[in-house]
């Protein structure tokens, strides 16, 4: 295929757009689910499935675009200022943590470990912003609970992301 300098790779553009859309829908679904946790800041983190998939197939710049677009568009369609700040801090922190881990420990760690770390950083980001928004550092005493909750949610997200990645590889869409 001939490459034009500065041209946009259409496949990549489509992948980014689809991932952003999926992330938004997953975030919306998560909002409708009843919350099984009694700890503020804890979330299932379905959007992390998309972040992880993006990191796996795209470079850091492109996966940042996926995360940031999802956060901004979600805030613009059905969010408030504080929910925007929560998802921005959680999304960016988990993006950085997971992208770094995937780069350094690609062979040592599986997607499950990476997504556990992603869940932890996602929850931490949200809790830190919560502490700032409500002006209360005592809320950080919930951190230990968030660490432990991140294990099952991280495993779940990791398994789903692995299935999605394997499926996408099979379709030959990504080269």
């Amino acid at each position, binding site marked *: 295929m001939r490459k034009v300098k500065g041209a946009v790779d259409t496949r990549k553009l489509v992948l980014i757009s689809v991932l952003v859309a999926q992330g938004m829908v997953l975030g919306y679904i998560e909002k409708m689910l009843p919350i099984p946790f009694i700890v503020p800041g804890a979330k299932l983190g379905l959007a992390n499935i998309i972040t992880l998939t993006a990191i796996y197939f795209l470079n850091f710049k492109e996966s940042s675009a996926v995360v940031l677009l999802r956060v901004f568009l979600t805030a613009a369609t059905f969010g408030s200022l504080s929910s925007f700040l929560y998802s921005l801090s959680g999304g960016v922190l988990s993006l950085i943590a997971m992208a770094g881990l995937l780069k350094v420990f690609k062979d040592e760690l599986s997607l499950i*470990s990476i997504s556990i770390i992603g869940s932890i950083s996602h929850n931490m980001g949200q809790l830190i912003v919560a502490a700032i928004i409500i002006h209360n550092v005592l809320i950080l005493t919930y951190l230990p609970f968030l660490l432990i909750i991140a294990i099952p949610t991280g495993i779940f997200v990791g398994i789903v992301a692995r299935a999605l990645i394997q499926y996408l590889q099979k379709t030959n869409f990504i080269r």
Partner: protein
Amino acid sequence: MKKNDMILILVVLIVGIISYGIVNAIKHNDESNLKVIIKHKGVVVKEYAFTHETQKTYVLDSEDEVNVVQIKNGEVSVTEANCHDLICVKTGAISKPGEIIVCLPHKFTVEIVSNEMLNELDDIVE
């Protein structure tokens, strides 16, 4: 799952349990001179001295945001709220200094503090 995953899960679990222990150790010291502080949007809206005999009900009602705080039998709980996740109600009762009930959607918190802790917290903020 690889072996490394198991190690990571174990490490996270251990760190979680240890930090829970540390948080708990900080919580349980001073049991006298307790106060219940109720904050909304970062501003203290009500303060009560908190003893076993304290019996108070505080109702926050501003801009359709309702939280009902009940203090009785040496316990503090949010009994009613109209936020969407109801985490504040599900948290149940708190009774020790350092414990906190949080309603993130309403930016509403109820905390029990001792005088000693209050000074420490001021130091952190400064």
